[in-house]
């Protein structure tokens, strides 16, 4: 019996689920699952992890600083792999975008007079794109990032359970 309560099809969860499943099937289709060498598994693991991050970032689009930063990171990484030249070019544009976004949001990190610089720095390292945010926006982004991470974990857990039950 289907759940009588249907989640909003445009909710973050559904968006992420669709994207991630698609990526998963693509990854699975690439290589046979039977191969169980550690390197293979590790490679697949990396790919799945990237796919998860990517699906999440794409689900959020560019609404958030951290999603923009993550997308930029992923794109630059993929560009670098494919073509060093294009990577440089894309890197420049990406950096321009990042700078623009950072300017929009706030000045460079600084002590906001609150005195939580150490923790704030640590948080900045955790949240993608956090270096360019001031504490105020950092907390904002962190809250949204936590929400997306929990969604990601939920969905992935369900998928894993489904597969392995």
């Amino acid at each position, binding site marked *: 019996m289907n759940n009588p309560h249907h989640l909003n099809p445009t909710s*973050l969860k559904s968006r992420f689920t669709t994207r991630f499943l698609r990526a998963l099937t693509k990854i699975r289709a690439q290589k046979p699952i039977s191969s169980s060498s550690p390197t293979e*598994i590790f490679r697949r*693991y990396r790919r799945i992890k990237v796919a998860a991050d990517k699906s999440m970032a794409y689900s959020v689009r560019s609404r958030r600083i951290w999603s923009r930063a993550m997308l930029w990171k992923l794109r630059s990484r993929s560009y670098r792999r494919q073509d060093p030249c294009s990577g440089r070019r894309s890197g420049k544009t990406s950096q321009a975008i990042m700078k623009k976004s950072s300017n929009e949001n706030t000045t460079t990190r600084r002590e906001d007079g609150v005195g939580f610089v150490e923790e704030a720095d640590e948080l900045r390292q955790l949240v993608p794109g956090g270096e360019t945010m001031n504490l105020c926006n950092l907390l904002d982004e962190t809250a*949204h990032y936590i929400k997306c991470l929990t969604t990601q*974990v*939920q969905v992935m857990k*369900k*998928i894993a359970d489904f597969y392995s039950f």
Partner: protein
Amino acid sequence: MDVGEKDKYELEKRNDNSLNYQTSGMSSAWQFGGSNLTSTPMSLVSSDNPLVIGSSSASASMGDSFCSNLWEHPSNSQNLGFCEINVQNGASSSNAMGIGRGGPASVRSSIDRPFEMGWNAASSMLKGGIFLPNASGVLPSSLSQLQTDSAFIERAAKFSSFNGGNFSDIVNPFGIPEAMGVYARGVGLMQGPQDVYTISGVKSISGVESQRSKLMTTEASRDLQAENRATQESPLKNERNSGSLVRSNEEAKQGNGGSGNESNEAESSGGAGGHDEPSALDGTAGESSAKVLSSKKRKRIVQEAEVDQAKGSQSPVEAAKDGAENQQKGDQNQTTMVNKTTAKHGKQGSQASDPPKEEYIHVRARRGQATNSHSLAERVRREKISERMKFLQDLVPGCNKVTGKAVMLDEIINYVQSLQRQVEFLSMKLATVNPRVDCNIEGLLAKDIIQSRAGPSTLGFSPDLSVGYPPLHPSQPGLCPGGFPVMGNNADIIRRTLSSHFTPMTGGFKEPNQLSNAWEDELHNVVQMNYGTSTASDSQEVNGSQPSGHTKVEL
């Protein structure tokens, strides 16, 4: 993990968390000021917490849900962060306020009670009490004073403009007379004490509080009001001069008492009380003013709390005069407000009376605070940060008891790290697990996951094995197409079956003969296996439970 809809889950989670979070947040606000200044306020804070807890939870939950909605809407999300966009943001908050508007009278009365209780409890302990600008019903005495203050009216007008929709919406339903019109806006604040709170120009605060105002209508609103007042005082203190603060308080009072008649009555009663208090207040105000000069926000809170306490102690007396709760509330608010106002007026001679006005955020310097634009902006920023910290406290589980920003931040960092590690672990798990069905996994899982049905294990079995099994026992609901013809296209069959009869199998999975073979083959090619054994399985009973178990082990 809760599999319910994300929205519901979040809402529930937020509601649950808000209970803890709000109380902790509120209590921390209380304790925050207390701990810094003197031991007295701390004890007072603890006493007030119980009152605050009840209300805060309700508001917090609403606030959280609202905040979560804000997350999803990019346009609004900006509002959360930026106070400058006052007008537009008001729309979002006005929605929240709409609910609050619905029961202004009830809210006010409810607010009065807890406020009164809070005051009575706190007055004895807190010296200054916590100044609650939103004190409902404090209008009367302050109102009279305010009326004479044209500048205040101007500020009130500005004040209302900050809240944007909130104020305007609030004003109309109450039908407050013109004279009260300006103050009546504060009424909206009653339901949304955050409105007053937002005067400082902190949009996020208003947004969150406007949600709280929604809850104000609930019974918990009373406590919330008391709580909000306290919290509002703190942010207000930070951002306003004594003069402006007093005025804003008056506005809040008026707003609170606002429900037209009530406020009028409160005014009259409060006015009497207010006059009596000023003298007492002056004494306390003197102390508080000295403290206020410290430029610390916490000190302010304590000072104001002390002042409020003084007022509060007087308010009960006033309350005795008026039988009606509203009046009492008004008295308390008014007297406290008035006392503060009068005391402040007295002191204001020396202090800057004109609050500095910024272009974007109309922040008023608090009493004793430097009116430098930098410090004002800093204060606003600090307010924003504390608001966000409270929101995060709600998000991160187990942070309710944690007080203090540094520890909170550490908790948040740990939580984010753990979530990231969990994602890595799960992706590793997904990399090692063997997919059972490749083709339709997406549709199947999407349905399953998005609908968040419980028991993923049941789902795992049914789709793969039941497909193409006409002889499936009736115990397998939904998956037996009844004479489903064997088809060559596995994917099509699976999809059709799943889409049409997709239901979580409750375990009674019937397999044709050769279960073990089917299971093994299934790993590699489930559909083919099904087809291969379907013909032979017709006559055979399938004991799905065992093979399922075995399969599980194998898998």
